[in-house]
């Protein structure tokens, strides 16, 4: 199983340009957005400012790259995964290996976003900030894979992922949303934790339980999506 996950990871690492983008884009996003997110939140009537706004940018960078990654993991590998499952690996092992590779790539994005944030803006509560950024990435790996299991067309799929991300981001805490539908957004609690970490504060246990459950739910959905796309069809 570990071997299969490593093979899937190697498949990504072989595409040097794609890998370079996984490193460069989150770093640039955090760097550029750090100086303006506070002003943006202020224009939307939000309350997030300073280091908390910069920290939120790192979560967003991890989220949108992980969403695209999750989508393309499913949509571009469907046929190959089905053949692997038929050849004896089994749909469940394929799904677990794909999830493992996605989590490792999500971790890479998180490390880059976290380090850029730390070096440029400083982080008052590093462990909480790291965990929250990783949670953003994992939730969006789940969202991307679920979208990929329903939509195979890359343009429709990537637009759908972007659509979900932008609604989620702009209605999040510290931006425009505070009640109603905004409470149901997938990274709502992760954003609360990240904003608090940016301001040097811890978060209540209820927030951690909520983000833990959301992350588990997202990864479970991703595993089901991978399993469904890899399982052999009856003729």
């Amino acid at each position: 199983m570990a071997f299969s996950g490593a093979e899937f990871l190697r498949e990504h690492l072989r595409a040097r340009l794609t890998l370079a983008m996984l490193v460069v884009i989150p770093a640039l996003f955090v760097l550029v957005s750090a100086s303006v997110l506070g002003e943006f939140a202020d224009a939307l009537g939000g309350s997030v400012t300073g280091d908390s706004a910069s920290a939120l940018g790192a979560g967003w960078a991890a989220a949108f790259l992980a969403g695209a990654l999750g989508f393309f993991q499913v949509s571009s590998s469907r046929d190959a995964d089905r053949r692997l499952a038929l050849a004896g690996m089994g749909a469940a092992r394929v799904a677990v290996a794909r999830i493992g590779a996605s989590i490792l790539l999500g971790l890479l994005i998180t490390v880059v976003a976290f380090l850029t944030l730390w070096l440029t803006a400083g982080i008052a509560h590093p462990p909480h900030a790291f965990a929250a950024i990783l949670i953003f990435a994992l939730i969006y790996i789940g969202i991307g894979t679920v979208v990929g299991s329903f939509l195979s067309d890359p343009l429709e799929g990537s637009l759908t992922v972007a659509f979900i991300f932008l609604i989620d981001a702009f209605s999040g805490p510290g931006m425009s949303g505070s009640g109603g539908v905004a409470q149901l957004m997938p990274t709502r609690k992760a954003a609360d934790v990240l904003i608090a970490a940016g301001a040097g504060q811890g978060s209540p246990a209820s927030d951690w339980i909520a983000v833990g459950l959301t992350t588990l739910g997202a990864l479970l959905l991703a595993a089901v999506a991978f399993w469904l796309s890899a399982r052999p069809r009856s003729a």
Partner: protein
Amino acid sequence: MNGRASTATRMGFREQGRRPLLLVLLVAVPFLFISWSFAITEATPRLITLPGGEQLLTTMRDLHGAIMVPITVGFLAGLIGLFVVRSALESDRRLVLAGFSPGEAILPRLVVLVCATLVVLAASLAVTAIDFIPASWGPFVAGNLLAGLIYGAIGALAGALVGRLGGAYLMFFLPMMDIGVAQNPMFFDGEPQGWATVLPGYGPTRVIVDGAFSPQFQAGGELALSLAWTAALGVAVYLLLRRAVGALG
């Protein structure tokens, strides 16, 4: 356009028409983002600098609504360019093998890309008009069209050079950072900083800001710069695709 190129163009449109969700998204994304930007932004005062140096007091709400148009058009056109070219690279070599010239295979893809950009532009402008009337429609429309064409071409180049996943990463990021942050008069001192002038979104965004807030056209240099970017990128896309579909073993 000869018979073979028109048939390929018709097939290109039919290919897009088979994806009804795509059409819905091309209209729904501009509708949601632009109308939402107007709805959620506070009408706080904001001093901006127009092309030509004149300073003008407007509101964050109007600025956000106006600037969301090129962000949306650039973002959508970029993704369309990316995937239209990926599709071309996968199948148009076969057309060339079957007797099409590279130009006859490429032209229909570019027509589809420009038409999709026009659909997105029309939807975006229609939504904008509900909440905001630019001081001068001509430059506002021209700037947005140029932003769409520039980012459509960048998406096409990304599709050919960095592949599907790398291209998607790039097109998620680049229009947001260029038009949404670097050129956005909501940030910094109300005009782009020096480093932002080398980015492709500089010219179109300045033309748009001029059209949105000034009845007199003062962005001639920025318009010329935008046209130069569009022409250079258009030629680059054509040559790259010509080489890609014509390079047969």
